[in-house]
């Protein structure tokens, strides 16, 4: 019952903070343009191929990571900081509806960003031949994983809005770099490649890029399996973290 109102409220707050809305739109566009320009300049790829290669890593690293993980951490932390979450405890809103509401709202933001990134890539001649339903499934699983991770960080680690910046800077940016979101993992030295296999962002990038470019399933299947496992782990962890927060903070 409460999933849709929660999602509506988060999006409405975003619309009221117009500046944030504009920045959420502009950020992945900047990253796409930079990624594609670097790839085009440093490799022998055409502009269309550069955008084709830059699109999946931009979606995973710049769009979904910050809007779905960073965004859901901010939503939960702001709710705790302003104590509006206590008012939600008083209402019939269940924990699952709350989680799904946040998931839905950040899915809308993430999908919006994804469409903008795709539109620009297509404008520059990029071609994507992969299965559309599979691409959508990978994006949905990525959002689910990021929102789950956001719940863990937002309920267990970040207590104030300032903590979110520190968390994203300390853990988020290295994860993105090591995941190949800014420099393709194929350019990594072997030592970093060995390290990257432990990084979920690397697997999400690899599976999305692989599927979008019709790479044989044998080469991307294990990345997909990792993504499914990672999403389930993050959602379970997020749910348990939320329950633990309820026990701690369920009072006026």
């Amino acid at each position, binding site marked *: 019952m409460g999933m849709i109102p929660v999602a*509506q409220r988060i999006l409405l707050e975003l619309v009221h903070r117009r500046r944030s809305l504009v920045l959420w739109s502009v950020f992945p566009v900047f990253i796409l343009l930079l990624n594609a320009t670097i790839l085009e300049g440093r490799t022998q790829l055409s502009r269309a191929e550069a955008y084709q290669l830059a699109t999946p890593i931009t979606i995973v690293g710049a769009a979904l990571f910050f809007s779905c993980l960073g965004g859901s951490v901010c939503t939960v932390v702001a709710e705790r900081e302003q*104590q509006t979450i206590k008012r939600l405890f008083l209402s019939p809103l269940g924990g699952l509806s709350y989680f799904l509401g946040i998931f839905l709202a950040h899915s809308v933001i993430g999908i919006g960003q994804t469409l903008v990134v795709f539109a620009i890539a297509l404008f520059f001649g990029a071609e994507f031949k992969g299965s559309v339903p599979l691409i959508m499934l990978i994006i949905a699983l990525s959002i689910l994983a990021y929102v789950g991770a956001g719940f863990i960080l937002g309920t267990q680690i970040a207590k104030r809005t300032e903590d979110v910046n520190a968390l994203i800077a300390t853990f988020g940016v290295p994860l993105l770099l090591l995941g190949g979101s800014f420099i393709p993992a194929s350019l990594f030295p072997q030592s970093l490649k060995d390290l990257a296999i432990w990084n979920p962002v690397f697997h999400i990038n690899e599976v999305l890029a692989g599927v979008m470019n019709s790479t044989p399933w044998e080469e991307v299947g294990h990345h997909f399996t990792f993504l499914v496992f990672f999403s389930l782990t993050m959602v379970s962890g997020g749910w348990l973290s939320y329950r633990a927060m309820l026990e701690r903070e369920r009072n006026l």
Partner: protein
Amino acid sequence: MLKLKGISKNFKDRPVLRNLNLTIEPGTVYGLLGPNGAGKTTTINIICNLLKPDRGEVLIADQPPNHQTKALIGVAPQQNLLYQTLTCRENLAFFGRLYGLQGKGLHQRIEECLALIDLSDRVNSPAETLSGGMQRRLSMAIALIHQPKLVILDEPTAGLDIEARYQVWEVIRHLQRSGTTILITTHLLDEVERLCDKIGILQQGKLIAEGSLPQLRRLIQAQEIVTIQAQDQQAIIDRGKALGLVSRRYGADLSFWIPELLDLKQILEYFEGIPIDGISRHPVSLEHIYLEVMGYI
């Protein structure tokens, strides 16, 4: 409407509520008084099913607290807890939807609530642009959006200026006239005196006095309280003692309980021969009763 039977609650080894029995009849405005730490907010948490009591039973409209009883209760917490960037309408619509309201019914209810709290002209103003008093009234409207049977107002006028307090009281009186059952927790005695049909006084988790204001007045054997200013206070005390009057110090004021209504001349005769700088007469108020039962004097 609400029954608490033998409720006890400990936080670690510290007892917060001790065998609390409390009944609120439908349509009553009940004032729960007590100093900070007396257990008022813990009581609310238990009623709202946010905390489980260690012992005892809670019944809301004859049901133990559960997911369904949440819809029977509307709570305006001590802090306003509003979504600051959302407008008044959007705040009300969000909480209305959480309680299952939608469409025309929701729209109509929002208009009714905004009219009740006198914020119809600020319907599209973000909460962050409202004054403290307006935010408190909006918080009350959120508590009322789903037409709860029991409304809980936790310190409804704490931190408000006098004009804003009057506006909040007016909303409470309107609810009272409409037959809503209300539980107010506060430490503002005049608020309880003005608004409540029944009063309970909590001390260290125990209900130490309960009743209507006339019933509680009987705890003090006096028709009025007379406060006397004089240089020789000992002489005044001795005279009061000789006359069999109960003396009390309310702050720096030396006062006597006068068991029957007397005119000023008769009171002055009591203290004849002792130089008096000033004399004032007061009806027995909740403040006198509260200080007495709490053992603060």
